[in-house]
C-alpha cells in the first residue's frame, strides 16, 4: 500500500499555488462547466440534436409519439442524470476519504464498499433477479455489509483506527473480488453480464435508476455541515481533539456517509474508477484544500467528469459503447501520473 514516500509526493501534488478569493467564483465556474457538459451530453449521440432542439424538448417535457422527445426524455435524460449523480457522489466520497485517511491515494473503493457492492450485484445477476429493485438492494446491502465488517475490524476501545480501517478495507476488497471471480466461473452464461457490469456503464439506465441515484443527494449534504471539522482534521486527529473537535463522532458520520454514497453509486453504475481519486486532487489544485470550497467544487467537477466520460463512451466508436469506467481510467490514469510527477518537482 501507500508508504510515506508515496503520500508525500501525492500531497505535494495537491499543494499547488491557488488563487482563492472566496468560494463562490470556483463554485460558479464548476457549475458552468457542469451545465455545458449536461447540455452537450443531452444533445450529442447517434441522433444529434441542435441546441435549439434541446431547449424545445426541455420546455416541452415528455411527450408521447415523438421520436426525438423519446430519445431525449426516456434515454438521454435519465442516463445523464444518473451519470451526474454518480460522479458527484464518488467525488464527494473521495474528498472525505482522502482527508480522513490523510492519504492522497485513497479513493471510494479502498474501504471495501465498492467490492462488496459488486459482490451483491454479481449475486443479483447470477440469480437473474433483474435490474431493479433487487440488483440495487443487493448492491447497497453488499456495500454497507463490507463497510460494517471493516468498521468492526478497525474498532478499538471505542475508537476507529483509520490505518487499520484502510488495511481491512483493502483486504476485504480482495476477498469480495475473489468471491466474484468464483461466481463468474460458476455462472458461464452470465459471465459477460457480470464483466460488463463490473467495468461500469450507464447504458440503458432509466428513471428507476435516477430514483435510486437521487438517494445520494441528502448524503452529499452531510459533509457540507462538517467543513470546519474537516479542515481542522487536516492537522491530524490529535490536534483536532485539542482544538475541540469531537473526532470520533465526526469520523463515524463521515465514514458512513462516504460508504453510503459509494454503495449507491456503485449499485446503479458498476465500478467507475479514478473519479473519486483524481477529481479531489485536481480541485485542490484549483480551489485549495479548505473544504468550504473543495467539497462543492469537487461535487460539481465529479458530475462533469462522469457526464463527459459517458458522452465519450457512447460516441467515440458509435454505435458500440466503451464502458465508462474504461474512459475515466484512460483519462484519469495519465492525469494522475502527471500530478505525481509534478508533485515531485515542486
Amino acid at each position, binding site marked *: 500500500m501507500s508508504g510515506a514516500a508515496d503520500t508525500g509526493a501525492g500531497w505535494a501534488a495537491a*499543494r499547488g499555488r491557488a488563487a482563492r478569493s472566496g468560494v463562490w467564483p470556483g463554485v460558479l465556474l464548476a457549475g458552468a462547466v457542469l451545465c455545458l457538459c449536461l447540455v452537450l451530453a443531452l444533445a450529442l449521440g447517434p441522433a444529434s440534436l441542435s441546441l435549439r432542439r434541446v431547449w424545445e424538448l426541455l420546455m416541452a417535457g415528455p411527450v408521447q409519439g415523438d421520436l426525438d422527445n423519446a430519445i431525449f426524455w426516456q434515454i438521454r435524460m435519465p442516463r445523464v442524470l444518473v451519470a451526474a449523480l454518480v460522479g458527484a457522489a464518488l467525488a464527494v466520497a473521495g474528498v472525505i476519504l482522502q482527508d480522513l485517511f490523510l492519504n492522497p491515494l485513497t479513493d471510494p473503493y479502498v474501504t471495501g464498499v465498492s467490492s462488496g457492492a459488486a459482490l451483491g450485484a454479481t449475486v443479483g445477476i447470477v440469480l437473474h433477479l433483474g435490474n431493479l429493485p433487487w440488483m440495487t438492494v443487493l448492491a447497497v446491502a453488499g456495500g454497507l455489509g463490507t463497510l460494517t465488517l471493516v468498521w468492526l475490524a478497525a474498532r478499538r476501545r471505542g475508537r476507529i483506527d483509520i490505518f487499520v480501517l484502510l488495511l481491512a478495507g483493502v483486504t476485504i476488497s480482495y476477498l469480495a473480488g475473489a468471491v466474484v471471480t468464483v461466481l463468474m466461473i460458476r455462472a458461464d452464461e452470465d459471465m459477460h453480464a457480470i464483466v460488463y457490469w463490473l467495468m461500469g456503464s450507464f447504458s440503458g439506465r432509466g428513471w428507476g435508476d435516477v430514483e435510486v441515484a437521487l438517494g445520494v443527494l441528502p448524503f452529499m449534504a452531510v459533509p457540507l455541515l462538517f467543513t470546519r471539522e474537516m479542515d481542522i482534521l487536516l492537522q491530524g486527529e490529535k490536534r483536532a481533539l485539542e482544538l475541540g473537535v469531537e473526532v470520533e463522532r465526526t469520523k463515524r458520520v463521515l465514514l458512513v456517509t462516504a460508504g453510503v454514497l459509494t454503495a449507491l453509486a456503485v449499485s446503479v453504475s458498476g465500478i467507475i474508477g479514478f473519479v473519486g481519486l483524481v477529481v479531489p486532487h485536481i480541485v*485542490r489544485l484549483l480551489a*485549495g484544500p479548505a473544504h468550504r470550497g473543495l467539497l462543492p467544487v469537487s461535487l460539481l467537477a465529479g458530475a462533469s467528469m462522469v457526464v463527459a466520460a459517458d458522452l465519450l463512451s457512447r460516441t467515440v466508436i458509435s454505435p458500440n459503447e466503451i464502458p465508462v469506467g474504461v474512459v475515466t481510467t484512460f483519462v484519469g490514469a495519465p492525469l494522475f501520473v502527471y500530478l505525481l510527477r509534478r508533485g515531485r518537482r515542486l
Partner: protein
Amino acid sequence: MTADMPGLPAMSAVGSAAAADAAAGRLVRLRDVDFAYDQRPVLRRINLALAPGDFVGIVGPNGSGKSTLVDLIDGIHQPLSGEVLVRGRRTDHYRRREMAREVALVPQRFDLDFDLAVREVVEMGAYCRGKDPGVAGDPEATLARLGVAHLAGRRFSELSGGEKQLVVLAQALMQQAPLLLLDEPASALDVSHQLRLFDLLRELNRDGLTVLCILHDLNLALHYFDKLLVLSDGEVAAFGPPAEVLRPEVVEAVYGVRAYLHRHAGRTYLTFSPRLRGERRGRVHLICGGGTGAGMMRELVDAGYEVTAGVLNALDTDEKTGAELGLRMAVEAPFTAVGDDAHAENLDLLRAADLVLVSAVPVSRGNARNVDAACEALAAGIPVWVDRRVQAGDLVGVTGRLVDAGARLFAGEGELLAALRDGGLRGLEPAPTGEDRPSRSDGQADGTGGP
C-alpha cells in the same frame, strides 16, 4: 519520592476534591494519577495543583512522561487511576469543545501538509468558540500580538520552523482558554526565537494566562519559570522554585550526568558533564593558579577523572572553577604565600593521586612550595607532567629541579586534550582486574617517567 521534595503542596487531606478546588481557585489538580499505555506504565502517583496565574515549567529526561502528563490535563487521555480535574471537574466529563475553551495546547510536532493560508490555520483555533466573532477574536490581531502580523497572508507550508511555532501558538491563543500547555515549544527554535518565545509567554502570563510548559533547556527553565516540575521515570522528582529544584544533586539523580552550578553576571547557570561521580578513571592532581588550570580541570572532570588541586589562593580563577566543579583542593587565603597547613593538605592530596600535572603557572616565592610538593611526588614514585612553558614564568628558578628529578614535559592543554581524545591518560586507566585505580608500577611502566 515526592514526600521529601521542596515546595510540593500538601494535599493529602482531600474530601470533596471538586469543592475544595472551587474554594481554592485551583485551575488544575491531579490526584494520585497513574497512567499506562497498554501495559507499559508511564506515570505513577502524580499529584499536582495549578492555580490561576501560575507559570510552571516541566523538565525531565526523554520518556519521563512529560507529554503524557500534558495530554492528561487536556483530557486527551484518561488516567488509569486517580483523577484529573480542570476547574474542579473531571476531564472525562467535558465535551471536547468545552475543554478547548478551558485548556489550549501547543503541540510538540505540528504537521500540516496542505496549502492553507496562515490566517486560515490561526482561525481554526476559534473553532471551540463557535461562530460568534466577537468572542472568537481576530486572527490578524492575535498574530500581531505575537509580533508576526505580516505572516497572515502567507502559506503555512512555506514558513520557517520558528514562524510555524508562533503561528501554532497564535492558533492556541485563539481558543482564549485560561490555561496554556506547551510541549517543547522551543525545541525547533534558534536562541533568539527561544528567548522571544519565553518573553512572550512571560508577557501572556502577566496578562493572566496560566502557563505550563515542557522544555529541555534547564538554564531556560531556571531563568524563566516561577516553579518547576521535575519528572523522572514517570514520577514527580521535585516541584518548587527553580533554584531549589534544579540543584546539582537532583539533576544528577534524574538525568544521570554531573551538573555544576556557576554564577555569572548575577545569574546562576548549570553546566553538565557526561559522567557521573564514582565513574572515575583515575585521580589527577593539578598544580596551577591564575586561570592556567581551569580548562584542564573541566576537561579532566568531563573525561571522568577525579581531580584535586592545590595549593590555590581563595578567589583565584582556578580556585573558583574548582569550587564550581566540586573539586577537593588545598586552599590558602587570598594574596598569601602557601602556609604550612595548606602545604600539608596539598601533600596529602598529591600522594593520593595517580598523576600530577603542573600547569604553566607563574612561579614566585608565594607558591614555590608547590614545586617542592611536586618533587616529593616524584620521589614517591608518582608521575609528574610539567607544562613546558612553565620555566618562562618561573621567577625564582625552581622548576628546573622538576625536570632533573624526572618529570615529563608536555605541551599544555592541547596535548592533554589530544591524549584524552585518544582514549585517556596512559597508565591511568582502571586495571582490567576491576580494581578502582591502577597500581603505581603501571604508571611508571607506561613511560610517564620514573625517578
